[in-house]
């Protein structure tokens, strides 16, 4: 394998965001290199594997049997005392619809990048950015015992939750303790969970500041996971303590055998102020583009990746990697998702403050009214009918 010293585009991180960026950059004529620090793209999995069909086509991705594990009909949202709201897939938002094999999904996206002409280097850890007069002009790479520099017209930081590359470049990707979820999940087999529904459990007694999920992979296997707000963690390993306690109490999964353990961090922050600086752009989790309510980030990483790739292809064609050209990416992704991310962050802040009692009332009144569609008016109406005194608490949230 021969690699150049210089590319139009160097993408750091072969997650969905990085691979889709590399694919569309290469398709549009940019000489592209994709760097991944793992030796095995997509693995180990750090994901609940819930994905909606809604937005994938925007990123040029078709549902593919190779990575589709299970299709669900909807989701149950369950309050601390067990009130249950069932919503159909159409209205469940970003997170349900499909449960996927995330390792294969990531490999397929990297394969598409390669097919489009991008070069790939695995076991290649970026350890710093190279700057000239304050502009990013490349990255420093450790690869299989060797260290070298690669220059680029533009560096794309798609390095996921860790988001260090952007920070080395001087962009602020810092998170507050209330915007960090500490996540842990077991894939359990030998369970008796309805494979047609995802389940979401809310409440301070279940998952402080976050939620606990069941995403069924098949008839007898389910991803059971939890996200707890870092700010609310009282003892080390609270994520694991709460998850283990919950599993122990549910006879459907208690005897399940783990096929894997998944740990990871999830950002639930408002959108960043800036995701572009001279010579660099941030994509996906690195740009904190995760939906703050659901913690789902695969689809947004892919959607942003496509915009980034197209802007970079155009830049390469024109030989113009100026800040004003790169800013087209910033404008593009904001137009697509910024409002929704911000609104959902506000809603998350509110939801995380509700007491278990209020959550019970909320879910109860929604279930009672048979709210299928999570529209503002439908929800307000349902709550008002049963618990008029609650409406003032929610007006802002809704």
């Amino acid at each position, binding site marked *: 394998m021969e690699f150049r010293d210089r590319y139009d585009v160097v993408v750091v991180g072969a997650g969905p965001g990085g691979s889709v960026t590399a694919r569309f950059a290469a398709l549009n004529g940019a000489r592209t290199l994709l760097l991944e620090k793992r030796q095995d793209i997509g693995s180990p999995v750090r994901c609940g594997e819930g994905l909606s069909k809604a937005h994938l086509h925007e990123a040029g991705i078709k549902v593919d049997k190779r990575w589709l594990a299970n299709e669900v009909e909807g989701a149950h949202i369950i309050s601390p005392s067990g009130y249950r709201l069932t919503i159909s897939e159409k209205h469940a938002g970003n997170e349900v619809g499909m449960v996927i094999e995330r390792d294969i999904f990531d490999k397929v996206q990297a394969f598409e990048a390669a097919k489009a002409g991008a070069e790939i280097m695995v076991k290649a850890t970026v350890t710093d950015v190279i700057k000239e007069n304050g502009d990013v002009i490349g990255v420093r790479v450790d690869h299989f015992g060797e260290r070298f520099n690669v220059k680029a017209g533009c560096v794309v930081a798609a390095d996921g939750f860790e*988001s260090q590359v952007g920070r080395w470049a001087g962009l602020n990707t810092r998170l507050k303790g209330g915007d960090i979820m*500490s996540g842990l999940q077991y894939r359990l087999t030998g369970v008796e969970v309805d494979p047609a529904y995802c389940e979401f459990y809310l409440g301070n007694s279940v998952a402080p500041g976050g939620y606990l999920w069941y995403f069924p992979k098949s008839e007898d296997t389910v991803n059971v996971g939890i996200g707890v707000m870092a700010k609310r963690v009282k003892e080390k390993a609270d994520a694991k303590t709460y998850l283990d306690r919950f599993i122990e109490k549910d006879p459907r999964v208690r005897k399940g055998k783990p096929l894997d353990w998944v740990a990871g961090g999830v950002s639930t922050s408002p959108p960043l102020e800036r995701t572009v600086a001279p010579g660099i752009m941030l994509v996906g989790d690195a740009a904190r583009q995760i939906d703050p309510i659901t913690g789902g980030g695969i689809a947004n990483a892919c959607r942003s990746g496509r915009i980034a790739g197209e802007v970079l292809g155009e830049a390469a064609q024109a030989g113009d990697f100026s800040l004003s050209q790169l800013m087209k990416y910033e404008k593009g992704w904001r137009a697509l998702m910024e409002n929704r991310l911000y609104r959902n962050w506000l809603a998350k802040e509110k939801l995380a403050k509700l007491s278990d009692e209020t959550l019970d009332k909320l879910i109860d009144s929604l279930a009672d009214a048979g709210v299928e569609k999570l529209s503002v008016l439908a929800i307000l109406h349902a709550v008002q009918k049963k618990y008029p005194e609650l409406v003032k608490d929610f007006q802002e949230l809704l």
Partner: protein
Amino acid sequence: MLREQIVSPEAIIDNGIMAIDTAVCMHCGACVGACPTNAIFLTEVLITFDENCTQCGLCVKACPVGAIDYPRGHKLTKLR
């Protein structure tokens, strides 16, 4: 099942900044993304803490499995 806590000094890497229990760490990067000063680095197998650390404890909270602690002799034994 009778269990006892493994206390193996070789597994705990304590560089005086923060202490990491490598027998527990899942190399997931949750601490890295949480660290306000970018003081943690992870290469999939190795995790290190550098002098930018302010011992704020956010990584200790963010770690889902409780693999990070303050260095030996540090006065903060409880989470802030």
